[in-house]
């Protein structure tokens, strides 16, 4: 603030003010603390109002038990695909297993493989045989397990894939209507797994595998669940599928994540919509675009857009008006 003893040392200059120099004036009154307090109160009121009026969604999670009861045929088909190594998880590659040739690439770069197998999952043992081995007092199951273990790997694979094919061809995929064939102990094993799931025992068995008590890692039950169709059917019914712009959406009529519009957009169009490497390609593209956004100040052309689309003339109209008057 100038004191009354200050005198200008030179007449006022008229020159273009550089954006890098400290603002020489004119000023206006401003109370930064008051502004922030007002903002905090306004947002608090808005938040409470929105929360009171709209609440928040909470759709119950789908347990393996619920899935096995609601769609037992899908459950059994999925269990068989875990056994014969044809499920999504079994053929996924890293980080779950080392399936040859599995894994997406960004151009020539096999980024997925570079991650390594750091969350190993053996679908046949972890999802099917392991939980079944823990079931006591079931002689028929024990016999089936022994028969299965004693067989060669080729024989195991043949039983399971034949049964899987038969289920796919049966009306409704109903195990009771499967064509006659030699499926070995696989029908018994998958039937028993269904019983275990319907009793609720499989949910626990998969989260506490290996005899642990505490569980906070849901990798196995989630992978098993996602290998089936039931979870996806429920999701697609709510427009949450990848090709339904699902990344932007929320269950019910709730607003979702509108800011993900560009990320999910790419999945809707070629070449991404038909590519096996869609995830890697989209991720790479979005990483590039985000980098461009961050480095916008240095990109000629893009950084000139504000001059070309002069929204700023609205924002600073008071200032421009006053300057042209003086």
């Amino acid at each position: 603030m100038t004191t009354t003893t200050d005198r200008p040392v030179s007449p006022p200059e008229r020159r273009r003010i550089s954006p890098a120099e400290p603002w020489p004036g004119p000023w206006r009154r401003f109370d930064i603390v008051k502004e922030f307090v007002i903002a905090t109160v306004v947002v608090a009121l808005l938040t409470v109002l929105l929360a009171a009026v709209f609440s928040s969604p909470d759709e119950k999670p789908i347990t393996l038990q619920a899935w096995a009861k609601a769609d037992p045929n899908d459950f059994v088909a999925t269990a068989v695909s875990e056994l014969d190594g044809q499920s999504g998880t079994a053929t996924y590659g890293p980080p779950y297993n080392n399936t040859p040739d599995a894994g997406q690439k960004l151009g020539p770069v096999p980024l997925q493989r570079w991650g390594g197998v750091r969350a190993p999952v053996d679908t046949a043992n972890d999802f099917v045989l392991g939980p079944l081995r823990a079931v006591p007092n079931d002689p028929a199951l024990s016999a089936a397990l022994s028969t299965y273990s004693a067989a060669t790997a080729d024989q195991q694979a043949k039983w399971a894939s034949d049964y899987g094919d038969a289920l796919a061809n049966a009306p409704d995929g109903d195990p009771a209507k499967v064509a006659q064939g030699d499926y070995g102990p696989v029908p018994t094993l998958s039937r028993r797994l269904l019983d275990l799931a319907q009793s609720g025992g499989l949910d626990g068995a998969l989260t506490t595998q290996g005899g642990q008590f505490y569980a906070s890692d849901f990798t196995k039950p989630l992978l098993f669940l996602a290998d089936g169709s039931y979870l996806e059917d429920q999701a697609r019914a709510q427009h949450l599928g990848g090709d339904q712009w699902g990344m932007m959406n929320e269950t019910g009529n709730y607003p979702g994540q509108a800011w993900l519009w560009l990320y999910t957009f790419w999945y809707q169009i070629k070449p991404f919509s038909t590519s096996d490497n869609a995830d890697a390609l989209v991720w790479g593209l979005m990483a590039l675009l985000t980098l461009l956004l961050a480095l916008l100040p240095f990109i000629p052309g893009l950084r000139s857009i504000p001059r070309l689309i002069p929204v700023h003339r609205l924002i600073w109209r008071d200032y421009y008006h006053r300057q042209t008057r003086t």
Partner: protein
Amino acid sequence: MIDVVAAPVDLNHPGHYLHWGVIQLSLANLVVIAVMVGVFVLALLLPFPGGRRRP
């Protein structure tokens, strides 16, 4: 306390979706985006109270 079951506006019913070619947009998201654009335009156009100016 607020009874969540009786939220005045229950958004837990199946969502409404709009389709334009490859674009599918939920009504809820459309509303949010429209309000954002509307608020942005208002912020640009509404006169701002003039503070006392110092030289």
